[in-house]
């Protein structure tokens, strides 16, 4: 099911432009709502969520200036020192848009614990999306939506992914991830 160029949405093109630059500097994954939308889920979103591996301030500066050169701007600040210290390194997401545009936005966070590191380690390309970018696994997305996020929208996203990948989902992996979510995000034993 290869995607024709004309089938690419504004979100697809924005993401591919962003990743073409970011991929040279950092290991990343695309997570959350966009994963479902890229699999055909018919709902809106304003941002594309990404998790970056932790990188040094120097490396982040290089990435930031490459993004600026590539036509992006950071909503929070023009100063990469401030973006790194006050936001990324403090666990707050940063947001990039195309210069002068309002939407879409790339929402980027650093990996915050071993579960995020595991998400990056097990990242994969998902051919059904027709996009040449790395996503967190389908099992990871389902587990986060069913165990942590749990809004109506998230439960519907999980249901959609379960239907699209019917017969191909590793339920044991989902349970393993849910256990880690309870341990690391809810402090349960």
């Amino acid at each position, binding site marked *: 099911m290869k995607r024709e160029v004309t*089938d690419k949405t504004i979100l697809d093109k924005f993401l591919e432009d962003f990743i073409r630059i970011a991929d040279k500097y950092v290991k990343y994954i695309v997570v959350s709502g966009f994963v479902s939308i890229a699999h055909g889920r018919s709902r809106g979103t304003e941002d594309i969520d990404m998790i970056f591996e932790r990188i040094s301030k120097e490396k982040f500066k290089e990435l930031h200036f490459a993004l600026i050169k590539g036509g992006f701007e950071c909503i929070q600040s023009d100063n990469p020192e401030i973006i790194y210290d006050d936001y990324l390194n403090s666990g707050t997401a940063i947001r990039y848009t195309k210069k002068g545009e*309002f939407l879409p936005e790339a929402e980027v966070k650093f990996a915050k614990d071993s579960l995020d590191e595991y998400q990056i380690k097990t990242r994969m390309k998902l051919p059904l999306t027709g996009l040449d970018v790395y996503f967190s696994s389908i099992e990871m997305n389902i587990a986060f939506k069913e165990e942590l996020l749990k809004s*109506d929208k998230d439960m519907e996203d999980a249901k959609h992914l379960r239907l699209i990948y019917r017969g191909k989902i590793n339920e044991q992996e989902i349970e393993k991830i849910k256990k880690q979510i309870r341990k690391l995000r809810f402090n349960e034993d």
Partner: protein
Amino acid sequence: MKINMRDKSHDEQIERWADYVRNNPDWKKKHKKFIDGQIIMANRFYKKLAETAEGKAIIQELRAAKIRKNSV
């Protein structure tokens, strides 16, 4: 107790559309119109808003609220 705000027909719609995506290669064309339409409409609105007297300040507040929401 979690209150389910969606009714059964909503659930059935998700199943119908997921089946459509699995079985019809042309789903992307329909999907593209839907996704692009939302982005185009929102950007058109924000551009109009930015042209009004208070518009830029309102947009700044909306963005700040979004950043706060995602930092908790």
